[in-house]
């Protein structure tokens, strides 16, 4: 008899290959990234977040070996049906001869595998980061919060946990066999009707003993008492709100809205990765602004003139009433075709620099153009001119022009590109 061990390894941590997989992804990063971007082009924007199959060219990821090919080959095969010695089999048409050795080598030129959701998004948004603005510090600041942390044997009377205390007391009473009041009551009732002297003495003694025991074992003992315990914990500001402002006046075409939507989605995905909780506020405006739901935002009909200041004013109101800048990281992205009534420029500029920008982490302006248009040919619109002036005056604004879907990602990438300079600063 030799010794035998049976080991249950099922509980061992799986994914031993995880690290190897990450190494592989790191190595194939450039290729995978290309593939990811290509895949995300074909996808509906909502599904961008989902992982999925990507295929990358094998080139550069191969593991070369000395392999031989060609030459005369000899092979022995099973299943002869009609051949006799000396037969010549024609080479073409994949007759029996070829089947033997053809399996060697890599006939595939692409390598397909599945990326998980996290891997996909990571690669998708790799080398992007939130712009390093002065106010970004806020994002790192932690506020104190208190949190329940079990029970303690000491504490303030206000914190006594009654359920916990009572249940402990009950357990103790049961364990120590504290006589129940009903038991005593039953014996006393018996005593009342009992005639037999001997029995009465017996009952009396018993009742006495039970009462003494009940006295010794209190209903609630100090050792039963439990207090709720609280701990203070640092609470990072892990929430962000994203304002989507869009001009929906008649001059905005479906195509322009689509561009804007794509940009918003990217921003959402990006923020989602950084913050635990992200809220979105949609504000659309013509000559007056209103907060709407997503569907109305993108598809609801609206008409009228264009007053950008109305949207900024609305955003300011919402921030003031619902999103305290101390608790929320505020991001805003505005999309417009650039039209604005000339008289509004002054008001909008003031609102932006005085009210909006000081509380926002980031404010991006995206000027969307016609489908066929060329980005560099777009004339500077009234809004663009206004923002450009503010930017040159030192306002932390980011602005880009976009005409085509394919430009969205590069523009987004460009806006959030990791800038090495700031990273180094302590």
């Amino acid at each position: 008899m030799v010794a035998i061990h049976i080991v249950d390894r099922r509980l061992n941590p799986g994914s031993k290959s995880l690290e190897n997989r990450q190494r592989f992804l790191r190595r194939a990063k450039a290729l995978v990234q290309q593939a990811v971007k290509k895949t995300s082009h074909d996808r509906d924007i909502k599904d961008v977040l989902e992982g999925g199959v990507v295929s990358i060219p094998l080139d550069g990821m191969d593991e070369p070996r000395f392999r031989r090919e060609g030459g005369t080959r000899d092979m022995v095969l099973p299943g002869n049906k009609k051949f006799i010695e000396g037969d010549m089999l024609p080479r073409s048409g994949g007759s029996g001869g070829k089947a033997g050795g053809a399996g060697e080598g890599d006939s595939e030129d692409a390598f397909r595998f599945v990326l998980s959701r996290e891997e996909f998004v990571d690669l998708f948004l790799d080398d992007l980061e939130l712009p390093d603005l002065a106010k970004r510090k806020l994002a790192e600041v932690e506020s104190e919060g208190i949190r329940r942390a079990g029970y303690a044997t000491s504490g303030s009377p206000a914190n006594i946990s009654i359920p916990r205390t009572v249940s402990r007391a009950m357990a103790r009473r049961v364990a120590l066999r504290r006589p129940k009041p009903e038991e005593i009551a039953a014996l006393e009732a018996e005593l009342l009707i009992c005639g037999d002297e001997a029995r009465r003495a017996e009952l009396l003694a018993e009742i006495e003993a039970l009462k003494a025991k009940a006295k010794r074992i209190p209903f609630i003992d100090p050792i039963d008492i439990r207090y709720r315990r609280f701990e203070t914990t640092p609470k990072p500001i892990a929430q962000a709100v994203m304002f989507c402002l869009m001009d929906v006046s008649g001059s905005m075409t479906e195509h322009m809205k689509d561009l804007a939507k794509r940009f918003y989605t990217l921003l959402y995905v990006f923020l989602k990765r950084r913050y635990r909780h992200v809220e979105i506020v949609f504000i659309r405006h013509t000559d007056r602004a209103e907060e709407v739901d997503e569907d109305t935002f993108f598809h609801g009909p609206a008409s009228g003139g264009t007053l950008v200041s109305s949207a900024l004013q609305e955003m300011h109101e919402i921030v003031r009433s619902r999103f305290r800048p101390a608790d929320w990281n505020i991001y805003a992205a505005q999309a417009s075709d650039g039209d604005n009534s000339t008289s509004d420029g002054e008001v909008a500029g003031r609102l932006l620099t005085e009210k909006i920008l000081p509380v926002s982490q980031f404010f991006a302006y995206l000027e969307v153009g016609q489908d066929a248009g060329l980005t560099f040919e777009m004339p500077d619109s009234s809004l663009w001119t206004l923002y450009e002036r503010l930017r040159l005056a030192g306002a932390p604004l980011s602005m880009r022009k976009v005409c085509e879907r394919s430009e969205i990602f590069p523009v987004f990438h460009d806006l959030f590109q990791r800038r090495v300079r700031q990273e180094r600063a302590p």
Partner: protein
Amino acid sequence: MTDKRLFQGADWDFPTLQRIHDACEEIAESELGLNVYPNQIEVITAEQMLDAYCSVGMPLFYKHWSFGKHFAYQQASYRKGLMGLAYEIVINSSPCISYLMEENTATMQTLVIAHAAFGHNHFFKNNYLFKQWTDADGILDYLEFAKTYVAQCEDRHGRLAVEQTLDAAHALMSHGINRYPGKKLPDLRVEEKRAQYRRQHEESVFNDLWRTIPTGPVKSVATLSADRRRALLGLPQENILYFLEKTAPRLAPWQRELLRIVRHIAQYFYPQSQTKVMNEGTATYVHYRIMNRLHLQGRLSDGNFLEFLSSHTNVVFQPDFDSKYFSGFNPYALGFAMMQDIERIVTNPEDEDREWFPDIAGKGDTMGVLRDVWANYRDESFISQFLSPRLMRHFRMFHLHDDPAETAGIKVDAIHDERGYRRVRRALSRTYDVGFIDANIEVVDVDLAGDRHLMLRHTVLNGAQLNDTDAKRVLQHLADLWTYNVSLVEVDATGKVLKEYVANPRGLAAVA
């Protein structure tokens, strides 16, 4: 009768596994006379099985991206349902570790225990190739050492440098094998100790002063004659990794150690590639015998036995060459058929068998003969000795000779008839000969006097030259390790040069 049963239905628990193992062991020892390493049976999940697949089946292995690539690939095809997982993986170590999947039914677990824990285990312990080339006691410790060492190197010298060295070593892995045994049996524990000692020694004698002391005058070139030079370098050398480890001029000590690790692991797997048919044949034969005996003893119900037969039949299925399922000979089918055929020849021979196998025909001691065969042969010699005419007829084997110069087509050189038996058998055994499978590439010379140019030669056999792209890439890796130019000539039997490759070294990542 039911109390004799090992289990009912498909469910199993750990006591069942123990009972199954004990029942199998009893039969393996008393009836089959097997001699096995102690068994360790590990139950794992499908995901862990997938993990194991991708580090060449070993329970612990150093980290490298190529394993991740395989994992990504396997996972993708497994998820899509293109691929089933193996029922088991068994490791040539002492104790012999068999991994069983938790999804298997009780019958399958019985089959797998009989197959792996006794069949493969016996083969590992007794076959001469494994005895010669592998150190079952030391392998797990050595892998542990390798894993830690690689991790340490990454910490000290940077991940990139380690990765580049390993990439290069992997490319040359199939040329890092000693094909002729030395006097010493491999002992990986000593190997590990020596590596440790080497490191300690280096550290203890390290003195920065020595680096600045001028070295003595270079020996005059003329004193090194070509013959002496080759003798000193041990040339020609077919173990390229060994050659690099010992003589590459500018490798850091840790790089040499990495080459050594890759080389040892390649060597460890060397016997497995030469004994696929025999190994699977042995294991299949053993499980077949054990399962039948269990059934006869009433310890396996008829239903469970049918379940076994169904998967056994799937395993030993050999499609014909013109079937869409065909992908060469199934080592399980061929191996099992040959083992059964030997049993037949030994116990119940026909005249033909007496003529072909006078040594074993009618000898009567099946297990004695089989154990001897399992111990002393590898696929090539096994087939050339024991493939019987009857089996060739059974498989309807025929031999094709494909000469690209022949325009008329592929010639049927021999078939399963009186004239062809020996030729078919020889041809089949050739296809399992490692000497024919791997390209014959040797280091032939180094230009020590000149630019340290390393020269390799590929002796072309049957006109099969190297794949151009791959050869260039491998040579590039080789040049990176050698750090001077490397050339490879392909020479045919007459000495005519067919093709020449040259590779220049790239700078590897700076060694910290």
